């Protein structure tokens, strides 16, 4: 049995109809926290005596205190969350990427390109903008989405913009990612993308200088396959060789289309 896009199972004795209906309406508890409902109306004081009215009044005050307490707690939590965010994030930034608080120089490291030749990451990337990402070709999810999204954005921006941008994908899995395999992989997105690999020491140095956490390779399973943990952001180095902004996994094509021309125009993210 096959149908496009979606399917439903329903077991014969199902009571799902009721449950589904229940899901359509918010549960009664959803409005219990509404402060408006806690505000006591003046006429709400219990009849029959000042003591009851006082109690109602106290209850109301307690509720006000509780509501104020909640607001203060929310503010504190918000403040703590804001502090927990990387110091590099600028909340008021109109850039799609994450603005770095400090400038980071392009890593001065020599790796190996997909033709097997030495590639000086700092000197052999003369275009006005260099985007750097660490990944591996057995990555079915994060890497293809990131590379494909950038490729689409470059296509949308046109060749005049695209030729000023150098995408550099550094494999952190040199065992499996031979230069040939890396070339084949990147060609699926954009043949202009540069692929680099190196010895484990060279790759560790590149990641250290790029200020990303070191990738790690798991032990192989019985089939010989293994998982790789890697930094998933793209780092943008401008014409002066400095990065002031990074783009996390999940950056949309529209984000690139709006940010890339600004970076190329020499605007400095801050």
């Amino acid at each position, binding site marked *: *049995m*096959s*149908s*496009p*896009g*979606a*399917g*439903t*199972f*329903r*077991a*014969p*004795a*199902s*009571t*799902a109809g009721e*449950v*589904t209906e229940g*899901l359509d309406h918010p549960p009664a508890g959803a409005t219990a926290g509404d402060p408006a409902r806690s505000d006591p109306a003046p006429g709400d004081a219990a009849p029959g005596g000042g003591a009851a009215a006082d109690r109602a009044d106290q209850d109301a005050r307690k509720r006000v205190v509780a509501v104020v307490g909640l607001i203060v707690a929310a503010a504190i939590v918000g403040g703590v969350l804001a502090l927990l*965010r*990387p110091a590099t994030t600028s909340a008021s930034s109109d850039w799609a990427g*994450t603005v770095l608080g400090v400038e980071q120089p392009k890593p001065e490291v020599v790796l190996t390109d997909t033709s097997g030749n030495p590639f000086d990451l700092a000197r052999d990337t003369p275009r006005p903008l260099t985007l750097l990402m660490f990944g591996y*070709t*057995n*990555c*079915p*999810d*994060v*890497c*293809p*989405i990131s*590379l*494909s*999204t950038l*490729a*689409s954005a470059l296509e949308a921006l046109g060749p005049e913009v695209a030729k000023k941008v150098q995408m550099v994908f550094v494999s952190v899995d040199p065992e499996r990612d031979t230069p040939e*395999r890396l070339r*084949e*992989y990147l060609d*699926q*997105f954009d043949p202009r993308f540069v692929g680099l690999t190196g010895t484990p020491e060279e790759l560790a140095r590149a990641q250290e200088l790029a200020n*990303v*956490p070191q*990738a*790690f390779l798991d032990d192989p399973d019985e089939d010989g*396959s293994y*998982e*790789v*943990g*890697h*930094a*998933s*952001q793209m780092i943008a180095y401008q014409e002066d060789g400095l990065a002031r902004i990074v783009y*996390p*996994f*999940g*950056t*949309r*094509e529209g984000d690139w289309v709006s940010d890339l021309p600004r970076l190329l125009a020499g605007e400095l993210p801050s």
Partner: protein
Amino acid sequence: MCLAVLVVGCGLAGCSSSGTPELTVEDVVASANAGDLSAAYAAITNHGDGDDALVAVRCSCSERVSIHHTEHHDGLSKMVPTDRLEVPAGERVALTPGGTHLMLEGLHGPLAAGDEVELTFEFEHTGELTLSAPIVEPAELADRVEPNHEGA
């Protein structure tokens, strides 16, 4: 959207003691391949009152399909294979880029955007459902990435 309704008994294993799961699988999509592998995504909703779990997936396009979870820790992203994906009663479980996803390994051939593949989802209690998944360019999947999943 067209919803296929499939009536399936609970089988010899029986239903979970608390009730009967009723599952909807939608937004199924597979990514055009990059290299020897690809990924697929979907949203599974359990409208019933019994728990269920996704225990296996097969694809007409590949030798294997594994359920993977991408973990994001300390700035690193890493995939972790998992045997089963719980689909508790009343909950919606999304298979998303950068989250839990289906990894298609050992592709029989290239997956081209615009084509379709058949995916068979096997649930512990409810049984199997086969769906046709459109293949899209990975760039089209960026919109499915849950924002701020990395916390950074």
